[in-house]
């Protein structure tokens, strides 16, 4: 200890110093302690194989292509319906600005929540 307010001739200081010296000189045998700690560690995470990500990507792509082939014209129908819906309803610049503002606010709130620090 670097700073010690009391004088060293104090009997308590001497006793504490002697006790501390004895304490530091002692060594506790492991007696299986390290093994007990190692056994209590959480199980190691299983490393995923490197091919997993590309395989999942390819699988989803195949599913999407398969769905598109199995339902011919469905995507086109959805697109036409969406266009006709928009044509039926007049959308003002204010509506677009409001929607953009709401989307922006939601994005910022989401980003702020995701980047928050739990101090």
């Amino acid at each position, binding site marked *: 200890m670097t700073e010690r307010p009391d004088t060293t001739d104090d009997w308590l200081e001497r*006793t504490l110093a002697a*006790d*501390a010296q004895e304490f*530091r000189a*002692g060594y506790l045998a492991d007696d299986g*302690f390290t093994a007990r700690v190692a056994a209590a560690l959480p199980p190691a995470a299983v490393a995923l194989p490197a091919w997993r990500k590309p395989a999942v990507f390819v699988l989803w792509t195949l599913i999407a292509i398969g769905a598109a082939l199995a339902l011919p014209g469905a995507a086109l129908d959805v697109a036409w319906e969406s266009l006709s819906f928009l044509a039926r309803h007049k959308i003002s610049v204010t509506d677009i600005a409001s929607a953009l503002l709401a989307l922006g606010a939601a994005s910022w709130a989401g980003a702020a929540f995701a980047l928050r620090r739990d101090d």
Partner: protein
Amino acid sequence: MAQSTVTDAQLIARVVVQDDRHAFSELVRRYQSIIRATLRRLTAGNHALADDLAQETFLLAYRNLKSFRQEARFSTWLHRIATNAFLADARKRKEELLGDTVAEVADDDDAEMPAAGDATGDHARASNLRMDLERAMAVLSEGERAAIVQCYHNDLSHEEAAYVLNCPVGTVKTHLLRGKQKLKAQLEAWNT
């Protein structure tokens, strides 16, 4: 020892990057003695509780090793975790521990305390005094005991002790002063 050629920082890096369990076991092996001995002092000689808290300390260290920024020595960081574990446990058991300690000290005061005159010579007297000191530590508050153990037994500076105890330096000094006053009063009472 061949193992000591690998530094703590290298072992920590292996644990963090590769989740190397052997590297972590080596860290435990290096520091188990000082952490368990410190906790034995903090728990006033309760070896079973001290070992439970030591195990909790190393498990917490393993989980939080990524957040260890090497601003302090690894041993100081471990002492901080151990002291926090001890203080949290002491808060939980406060009522029970306080009752036991008071009863134990009262009993010791009446029956088991060897008289100062029993020992012959300076060495025996000093040895007795050190045994008394260990028992007298039980009358201190957890904070006072932790401050004395960290500053004297673990030889930490006031600043390091403040980091370990997670409190301002002034609080450490106050704990030390009050702790020593209590120890002095207790030891003087036993020896008169």
